[in-house]
């Protein structure tokens, strides 16, 4: 699956935290989700995204990079922050 971020009305970073306003809805991003948002200006395969996130954050504890990335991507899709390739 490939995903891409949805253009936000605004993106705010304060004290290391990120907030997005997308389609009139405010969404608070975790550090991982903020990195995903940053890496998805263009369409990108989730597998590639997982590799890039592992390179940046290291391997997650108690999970695989692919599972952790997949979980975060699912949440971001659910909140309308990302869209997936049809």
């Amino acid at each position, binding site marked *: 699956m490939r995903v891409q971020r949805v253009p936000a*009305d*605004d*993106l*705010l970073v*304060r*004290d290391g935290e990120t*907030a997005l*306003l997308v389609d009139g809805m*405010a969404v608070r991003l975790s550090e991982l989700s903020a990195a995903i948002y940053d890496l998805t200006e263009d369409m990108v395969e989730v597998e590639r995204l997982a590799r890039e996130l592992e390179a940046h954050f290291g391997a997650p504890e108690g999970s695989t990079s692919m599972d952790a990335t997949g979980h975060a991507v699912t949440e971001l899709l659910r909140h309308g922050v990302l869209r997936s390739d049809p």
Partner: protein
Amino acid sequence: MLTISTMPIRTRTPSTRETSNLVSHILRLRALGRRLEVRCIGDSADVLAFAMRASWSRCLSDGGGGDCGPSDTLHLDAHLDDSGRLAYQLMSTTQEITRTLIAGQAGRLLMLHAGAVSHPETGASLVYVAPGGTGKTTLSRLLGQRFGYLTDETVGIADDGAIHPYPKPLSVRRPDAPHLKDELSPDGLGLLPAPIAPQVARIIVLDRDPELGASVETEELSVMDALFAVVEETSSLSWLDRPLHRLADLLEASGPVLRVRYAEASEIEDYLSALLAGRS
């Protein structure tokens, strides 16, 4: 040659109803930085116009200059045929006026679902953000005895922190008919008038918990926590330029934002008065 018509000019005395129609059924209001004309229509238009003039006394405008941004006037109709439905129509007209004004300021003002009062001399203002039905009106009624009443519903804030007052009637739920609110004039309740230039001095988030008893709990919120507490109570936020930045800047400038948990408005009246006095 000058000729003067001798044809009689027919005159007649208007009926009571026609006379009442000669009295304007149009209310010219100035609120939330906009002008708004409300045209009362229907068989009982005169009853509605009379009642609205009383309840909207703080917002009546002579059409002159003053604190208003866009020069175009907003319009809406309020219809009353059956005078027995006056209270309901007053309530729904208040809601419609609020919606119209908010739409009229979308993209201009940062608008919070909040009440506000202002120090009568300095203009320093306390903004209390809360969802509907959680005590904004009750608190406005109490604090408005000491500070200038700005609104019990919507606070419109310009990018320099100036508040555009919306001193609407206070919408008070009837104990015996909770679906119905009476629209009470701030003048009738003896609330102090808004000062000339109210500015945001402090923002709090109200969290009413009837189980809390007499104790009051306060918590300082980080900017991000405050933003997410307040963002749910904004109107037309995404119409603004860089909306989250504008909101965060306001929260920082007036911070720290406090979350205040309480059961009854009377328990926090003195605390909030002291909070505002400290910023004046």
